[in-house]
């Protein structure tokens, strides 16, 4: 029994290692501007934020919609901290303000600080907000995200946030180097490693004693409390941890985009992430990852033709013009919600036994049809 478990674990790790190796090889051989890398990078970043949202919505049962706000905090913290101090003082970025922060940090500290800053905000906002339940919590967190977006564009905070102007020239993905050398770090691999480590931590959390307590709160608050689980403390913990990783994913998004502007972190972004979580299955980590790559691939790559005039070889510029992609996308989403309301994975995780069972069942069905 235990041996089989160990073998499965080893197999999983081998697969993950293989995946990373494939990415490394792809990066060394293919054109770095290929759309594939854009999709992979953005997919990995969205995987992380979707998993962090799933920790809250799927595993703790807290319906929160503040993810974009925490990503924004993370992105700004990272961008401001890692921007070289000579750029900050040279007025090339801070044109209208005297930058208040005069030091700069490395990538690792920047990422960590991004997470910690988001976690700090989550802690403070969680104190009043987490006493609310279900829909009210969603509204309050959504409001918080909007307030953060507005405040970060506020003139008075200009010396820190550069007002409504964008931030750039910080350490983005092309400038990351392998530690102690000048060799550039393969960017896609970097995103995969950063997001992978974070997701691994969340998985470890979910399978720990605390993760079980979170699930207990999701299943039945009254019973969880009667079993000695302090509701508020555990909700706050889940909220802070989720926001920590949302902050890191915001920082990764900033690295990926080369520029950051508060304007882009609209509530639309939260809905996108919520959509990924729902499509992947509420309460499934692997589901969130699969759904996020699927979503990004569709919206950034495969359905792009719908906006550009040609799709699947059909040239119809009158029909396939800007905005049509959104329409098709909405229809796909409606189909998913109507017919696969539990998402791709439900609340189960992807495993080899499950894949095997899936194909065996398929084969069986086919045989039955033949007979």
């Amino acid at each position, binding site marked *: 029994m235990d041996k089989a478990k160990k073998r499965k674990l080893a197999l999983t790790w081998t697969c993950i290692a293989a995946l990373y190796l494939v990415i490394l090889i792809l990066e060394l051989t293919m054109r770095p501007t290929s759309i594939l890398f854009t999709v992979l990078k953005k997919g990995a970043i969205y995987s992380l934020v979707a998993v962090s949202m799933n920790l809250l919505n799927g595993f703790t049962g807290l319906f929160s919609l503040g993810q974009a706000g925490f990503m924004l905090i993370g992105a700004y913290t990272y961008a401001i901290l890692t921007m070289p101090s000579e750029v900050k003082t040279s007025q090339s970025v801070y044109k209208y303000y005297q930058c208040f922060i005069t030091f700069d940090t490395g990538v690792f500290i920047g990422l960590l600080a991004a997470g910690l800053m988001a976690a700090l905000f989550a802690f403070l906002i969680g104190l009043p907000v987490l006493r609310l339940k279900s829909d009210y919590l969603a509204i309050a967190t959504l409001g918080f995200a909007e307030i953060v977006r507005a405040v970060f564009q506020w003139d008075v905070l200009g010396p820190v946030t550069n007002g409504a102007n964008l931030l750039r020239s910080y350490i983005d993905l092309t400038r990351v180097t392998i530690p102690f050398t000048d060799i550039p770090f393969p960017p896609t691999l970097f995103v995969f490693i950063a997001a992978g480590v974070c997701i691994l931590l969340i998985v470890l*959390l979910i399978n720990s*004693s605390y993760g*079980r307590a979170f*699930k207990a709160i999701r*299943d039945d608050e009254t019973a*969880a409390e*009667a*079993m*000695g*689980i302090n509701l508020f403390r555990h909700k706050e913990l889940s909220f802070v941890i989720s926001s920590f990783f949302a902050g890191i994913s915001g920082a990764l998004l900033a690295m990926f985009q080369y520029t950051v502007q508060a304007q882009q972190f609209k509530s639309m972004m939260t809905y996108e992430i919520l959509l990924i979580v729902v499509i992947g299955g509420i309460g499934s980590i692997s589901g969130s990852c699969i759904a996020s790559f699927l979503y990004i691939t569709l919206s950034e790559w495969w359905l792009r033709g719908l906006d550009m005039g040609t799709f699947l070889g059909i040239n119809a510029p009158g029909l396939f013009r800007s905005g049509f992609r959104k329409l098709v996308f909405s229809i796909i989403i409606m189909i998913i919600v109507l017919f696969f309301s539990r998402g791709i994975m439900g609340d189960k995780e992807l495993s080899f036994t499950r894949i095997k069972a899936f194909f065996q069942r398929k084969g069986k069905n086919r045989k039955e049809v033949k007979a």
Partner: protein
Amino acid sequence: MTQSLLELRNVTMQFGGVVAVNDFSMHVDEGEIVALIGPNGAGKTTAFNCITGVYEPTNGEILYRGHTVVVSHPHGKMKKNYAGHNAELYMDRKIIHPTPDEVTKLGIARTFQNIRLFKSMTVYDNVLTAMHLRARQNVFSSVFRLSYKEERRMREDTDRLLKEQDLYKYKDEKATSLPYGKQRRLEIARALATEPELLLLDEPAAGMNPQETKELSSFIREIKDKYNLTVFMIEHHMDLVMGISDRIYVLDFGSPIAEGTPEEIQSNERVIKAYLGESDEI
């Protein structure tokens, strides 16, 4: 006189204009099995919820091992509308109202009238989750598996508890897929996992057939001896109550009407009246 394990003093619970429990005083001594009975709507579960911290009583005091756990007096809106007794008794006391998890931490575990298991979890995880209360790991040591020894101990304890409760063979099944009687048993096992001294059972025999009820009564005695428990329960099945209780309290319309051994209660006129109704002049 030896100190009581649990003591309620003048506990009153008022919802709006309705006094659900009125001036209820009682005590449970260590090692006893005490039952609380009364017709439907008499306020039994409300009294339970006051003890476990779900409700903050409007007035009164609750002590555990001689220490005050809950104390309250009518305040806020209730100050004007209070319809219970002894409002002045606790007026100068500072209000203490613990959350249910703090009460559980003291060593008071409970089950629910309508079974409340963690629905999405397996039988095994249900019990394992309840061990979280006594775990000493913090979130970092548990994420980075630094407390793997404790985790292993928790898993061993869960295995042991499930074996003792005869639930081990169901361990990987979903909790809600068990037959009703087994779900009850699992709920009690889960409560035992919090290492209680006092076990509160809210209608443990509700929905059980006579055979299961019979088993339950020996089961309660068994766990009481095995885990050194004191049991305080609400029950409707008179066979069960009369068979195992050392003492019985009777509530009717929120007020205590009788207290005593099963024999005394059986022959108490007020109790008979409360249950059967008063006979009209024929």
